[in-house]
């Protein structure tokens, strides 16, 4: 018994030092040497300032930018509180949203929640679509992480006209940019085709900088 107690303590300590400390440190050294950009979080800098990570969605509300999927991470796109709505298929809140009122009768925006119906209505209004226009499945739903960096190609194409108008450039130019930023399935099989929103917006700013300042 005593022998087993001694062994269990020593083996646990050995695991702590080797697998808890040594292994991650070795992987860090190798990872940083081989793939420094990825190991440091795929951060994108502009004029020396970190503007975000290629892999992490950030909020875009202006009409001149493509907008990511709805986020329920914290108060939206908060990487310190990643996650989804966790609302189920028969949830009234998920479908219709929650629009509580303050005692003075004004809407309580702090506790308001946009349901799928609200997201769909807002999306159609912003992009000048008919009230019954079919929407891609990702356009009116919350992502799992709340940090989903991508949208579907159809979602991007539906936003292209709005973005082009806001920037005063031909729609065909923006469409072309969306196409060049569309990534197909990996090996033609895995995953789904996507467009990375931050990269697309950065490319927009780069190609049409003058309009961007307006």
């Amino acid at each position, binding site marked *: *018994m005593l022998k*087993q107690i*001694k062994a*269990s303590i020593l*083996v*646990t300590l050995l*695991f*702590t030092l080797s*697998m*808890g400390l040594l*292994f*991650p440190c070795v*992987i860090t050294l*190798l990872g*940083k040497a081989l*793939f420094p950009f990825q*190991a440091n*979080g*795929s951060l994108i800098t502009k004029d020396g300032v*970190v*503007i*975000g*990570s*290629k*892999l*992490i969605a950030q*909020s*875009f*509300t*202006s009409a001149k*930018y493509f907008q990511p999927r709805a986020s329920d991470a914290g108060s939206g796109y908060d990487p310190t*509180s*990643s*996650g989804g*709505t*966790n*609302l*189920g*298929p*028969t*949830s009234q809140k998920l*479908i219709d949203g929650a629009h509580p009122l303050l005692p003075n009768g004004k809407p309580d925006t702090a506790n308001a929640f946009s349901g799928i119906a609200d997201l769909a209505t807002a999306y159609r209004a912003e992009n000048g679509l008919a009230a019954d226009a079919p929407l891609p*499945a*990702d356009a*009116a*739903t*919350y992502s*799992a*992480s709340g*940090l989903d960096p*991508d949208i*579907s190609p*159809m979602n991007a*194409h539906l936003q292209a006209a709005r973005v082009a108008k806001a920037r005063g450039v031909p729609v065909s130019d923006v469409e072309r940019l969306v196409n060049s930023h569309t990534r197909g399935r*990996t090996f033609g*099989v*895995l*995953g*789904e085709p996507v467009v990375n929103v*931050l990269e697309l917006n950065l490319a927009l700013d780069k190609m049409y900088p003058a309009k961007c300042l307006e």
Partner: protein
Amino acid sequence: MTFNGILQILLFSGIIILLTKPMGLYMAKVFQGEKTLLYPILRPLEVASYKLCGVDEAEEMHWVTYAVAMLLFSLTGLLITYVLLRFQGHLPLNPQHFGAKQMTPDLAFNTSVSFTTNTNWQSYTPESTVSYFSNMVSLAIHNWMSAATGMAVAIALVRGLVRKSAKSIGSFWVDTARATIYVLLPICFVYSLVLIWQGVPQNFAPYVQAHTLEGATQSIPQGAVASQESIKMLGTNGGGIFNANSAHPYENPTPLTNFLEMISIFLIPAGLTYTFGRMVGNTRQGWAIFGAMGILFLVGAFVCCHAEQAGNPMVAKLGVMTAAASGQPGGNMEGKETRFGITDSALFATITTDASCGAVNAMHDSFTPIGGLVPLANILSGEVIFGGVGAGLYGMLMFAVIAVFIAGLMVGRTPEYLGKKIEQYEVKMAMLATLILAASILGFTAIATNMHIHPKGYWNAPGDSWNNVNNNGAHGFSEIFYAFASATGNNGSAFAGLNANTPFYNLTIGMAALIGRFLMIIPLLAVAGSMAKKIPVPATSGTFPTDSGTFVLLLVGTVVIVGALTFFPALALGPIVEHFQMMQGKLF
């Protein structure tokens, strides 16, 4: 279902079938002390660790000693993690200054139990609760230790089946060391680097303060993510470095990492079926176990993918497309990531709950009722559809004992398995393990759906225990049911809307995890000990062949019937009734 969906399921299955033999053969050699390709490089590490820990490699253990060593090892790890978590505020690599305030005593208990038992249930949001040190050291060591423990127990049980009139079933310390050094370490080493290449971070930098294009600030957590992600998946642990787990783009950035993560969940559990066959001297015995697991996996995968692609009719009514089209995935995309779409999310959910992994790349809570029923039913099957590393094999062998017993009853003959008579003692132990699991899941669920608690008190601030759910109606019941199924099955995935970070839930879920792990392992080690003592009887024309198609079907039937009869009433109250409510357009 889409053509691509079917293609991906078949591709995944094909690769697992191809990897099972080489992986299983390698592990059989490792646990029998034979030389392998990596032997010259890794043997010195093995020898050194025995020396450091004072372990005698040649010393074998009786099943009781083996169980005691396993329990002591788990207990030591549990205590160390509890202390380290509580003192995280005084430890290094803590740029956000998290302390004991975030890691309360009940949460630290729940978390250390959950990681020790290979459950990795998380009541907390990691990025706002635990330091880099806590993740990397206090928690990740259990990803290695609990995985190695699971493999050791499985191998001990197989030895018990193979040995003739023997007293011992191997050495727990040697099995644990070999599992870690020869199996987990080399794979995780390469795997971690591949993950970094694909975009998983690996650094100790403080949270990055980004200034977004629209002028907001965004605080982005970093950490030693890749080194933990690899063992989290390979060891079927599943505890996320971030709250969103494998849905988080830092844990699972691309469809390729997603595919590798799915493969790595099944790699060892599938391989172990071949290891088993090889160790008992008839690989067909292993393939029979694999076949039963494979059938149950495929049924779940197709049902789940179909339900998620069909989507929610109430969302379809709002003009959101549920049919897949070129350029958009369709289906139920609530709580799913664009890069994974429907198939990769539903397939991942099936795999992670078949194996007791519990990592998620989509929010199970937002699945359609039938899509969510599949993960729940997988867990309720006893985590034997490939199952956790080691745990899946020993769980399925327990069902095999019950299956041959049932077959024996049908023809009125003493049942045999692998040439050994299955007698009263073995059947009692196997049934004990089955019943304990069911009692824990249903008992705790019943308590948590009925417990009056004073609101704003210590035990459960929201008051009555059912107030912690995030959804009303049948779905709320499913959240509680799933929590205790997940904890008892040592899975760790969740219908994550449930607010489980209160003393009431932390303690009950922690207890369920302890029951599910150890009250299953101990009866099985007892079976191993009793089987090892027996003398094989020669097979006759009356022996029921356990490497035949009939046996595979009987085994599948046993798993389904035991699960279905035990849990059908509870499933009817949750996902099944919710499905009909959804089809009727009812909201809660």
